[in-house]
């Protein structure tokens, strides 16, 4: 399927989102063992496995146009999903530059960037955006730089200011969060915004992760996977819209598990922004229904064991307690050992 011709699917209302067989095969299944416990599972974000989600710094796939349409819907309804504090202006331009350079290099058939000093020309053929602008001059763009580029790249973006030996959530564009809110976390330090995560603090996970991120060097990004479950392929599972999706968790039955429960995997990339010394935390979300997931050999079996044995506090935090039994029961048929 080509990205240009793929129909725009929805992440809400009728939920027409589906994965093609190719998308299912390249889905970043996150479990390397039959059990799951927190770790600082960070690796250098170097290109590997052509065709996989790890080939390029920022993965563009068949859902591109659908996801950009969804982002526009969310942003238009709730502008507070976008935030750039005054001291983060340089970081916002840094992010625009990093994203444009990566996309133009990795996907020249869709994105082109021509630069003459500060005069830049950006062409996005997938969304028919042809923009001349002056780098560093926000008035030369139709909107602010982070919003401009963020409306054209899949995934959420948080820009973290580094000061006082800590990282602060001082800018971002977040329209597909797994139950967290940029407006709520705005200005928080690394441990403050991670405080709802159970167990990991006591394990020292955040001490190690913060120390690692403070030393992140230009040109040496790192990545990790995170996961949770979501009912329906709903990208915008944010606290702001909880009233629209929270009750779905109580409607899971043996009949609709396969279609409605989705594994939600975040490919998180952390990169040092060169001029601002801020950290760009990008969160690229992949959704796959249980019906789609079990088409891959071994995945249903492994997911069954992981979810069956998951510690209660983690299951609670990931919001699956109300339907965990139903889901584990349904998955058990794929675990014949």
């Amino acid at each position, binding site marked *: 399927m080509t990205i240009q011709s793929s129909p725009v699917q929805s992440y809400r209302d009728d939920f027409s989102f589906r994965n093609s067989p190719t998308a299912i095969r390249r889905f970043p299944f996150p479990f390397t063992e039959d059990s799951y416990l927190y770790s600082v599972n960070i690796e250098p974000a170097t290109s590997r496995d052509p065709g996989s989600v790890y080939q390029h710094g920022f993965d563009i796939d068949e859902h591109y146009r659908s996801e950009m349409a969804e982002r526009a819907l969310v942003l238009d309804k709730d502008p507070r999903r976008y935030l750039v504090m005054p001291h983060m202006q340089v970081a916002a331009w840094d992010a625009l530059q990093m994203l444009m350079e990566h996309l133009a290099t990795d996907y020249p058939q869709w994105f082109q960037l021509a630069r003459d000093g500060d005069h830049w020309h950006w062409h996005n053929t997938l969304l028919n955006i042809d923009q001349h602008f002056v780098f560093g001059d926000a008035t030369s763009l139709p909107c602010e730089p982070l919003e401009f580029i963020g409306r054209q790249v899949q995934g959420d973006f948080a820009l973290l200011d580094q000061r006082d030996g800590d990282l602060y959530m001082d800018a971002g564009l977040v329209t597909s969060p797994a139950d967290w809110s940029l407006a709520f976390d705005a200005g928080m330090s690394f441990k403050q915004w991670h405080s709802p995560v159970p167990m990991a603090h006591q394990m020292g996970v955040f001490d190690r992760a913060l120390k690692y991120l403070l030393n992140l060097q230009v040109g040496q990004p790192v990545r990790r996977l995170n996961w949770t479950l979501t009912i329906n392929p709903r990208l915008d599972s944010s606290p702001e819209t909880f009233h629209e999706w929270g009750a779905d968790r109580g409607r899971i039955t043996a009949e609709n598990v396969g279609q409605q429960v989705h594994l939600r995997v975040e490919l998180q990339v952390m990169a040092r922004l060169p001029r*601002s*010394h801020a950290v760009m935390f990008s969160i690229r979300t992949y959704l796959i229904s249980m019906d789609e997931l079990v088409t891959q050999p071994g995945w249903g079996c492994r997911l069954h064991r992981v979810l069956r044995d998951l510690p209660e506090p983690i299951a609670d935090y990931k919001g699956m307690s109300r339907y965990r039994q139903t889901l584990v029961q349904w998955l058990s048929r794929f675990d014949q050992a």
Partner: protein
Amino acid sequence: MSVALEVRVSAARMLTPAVREFTLQSCTGPLPGFSPGSHVQVHLPLTEGKVRNAYSLTSDPADNRHYRIAVRLQEASRGGSHYLHRHVQVGDTLQISPPANLFALHSTAGLHILIAGGIGITPFMAYIAALEQSQAPFELHYVYRSGLSDAYVEELQQRLGSRLHTYACRPDLNHILRDRPLGSHVYTCGPQPLLDAVRQQARALGWPPGRVHWETFSAAKPGQPFDLELLRSGRRLRVGGEQSLLEALESAGLQIPNLCRGGVCGQCMTRHVGGKIEHRDSFLSPAEQAEFLMPCVSRGCGPCVSLDL
């Protein structure tokens, strides 16, 4: 580990009889961007082996066409600055490590007070470019010896006007640091006695430690040659008197994470298991030094040192 960049010296000029400025252009792709306060390591092929010296980038971070560094000739040194002053010419190529920043500006400071001593002006040249662009309030206090370590002083006088304060000897730090507005941050770079005095005065006046920032330009100093035993690989190496332990490891093909090369950042921390060691770092506690050393500055002071490498 990061890959070294190849750059060409596109211009060189004497800023003072003791300070030489180099403009560096990329030989390959565009240069990586950098933030104010960043430094690069310049790789220098001295006769005794490769050494790497760290120099602050003085150019405008918004200008990605070139980097600039300014190097003070250090007579009592291992020869890195001597090599850059006497042997490097326009058109030569140099290897540098990509920029890293251990002395970043504080983004939410209400007032930036910069105190430079001599060649310690270098990181502030990039600071000033960024602070001017963001129109952030700042002032520069610059101590130098006229005709020797007064790099950029005329340019700064024109650019900064009354925001520049110059001194021929140690200024009255009490006057600079007393009764400053809430949200002020002070940054200092220069000789160790100046840094110590700024930190001491700030503490005496009740400045919160997080609002006092400093960068030393300490580098590896020479010492006695000694042998090195690498326990895991069973290799034996010789560390020359002008070479640092880290440089000897790198010359032998080992990749040790490192950033400051001045015993400050802690990146190159290595476990030692035998031999007498002269610790010269300012990162490890005495208790930690019993187990670890910082090979960028510390070295053996006996015949042989054994490392867990």
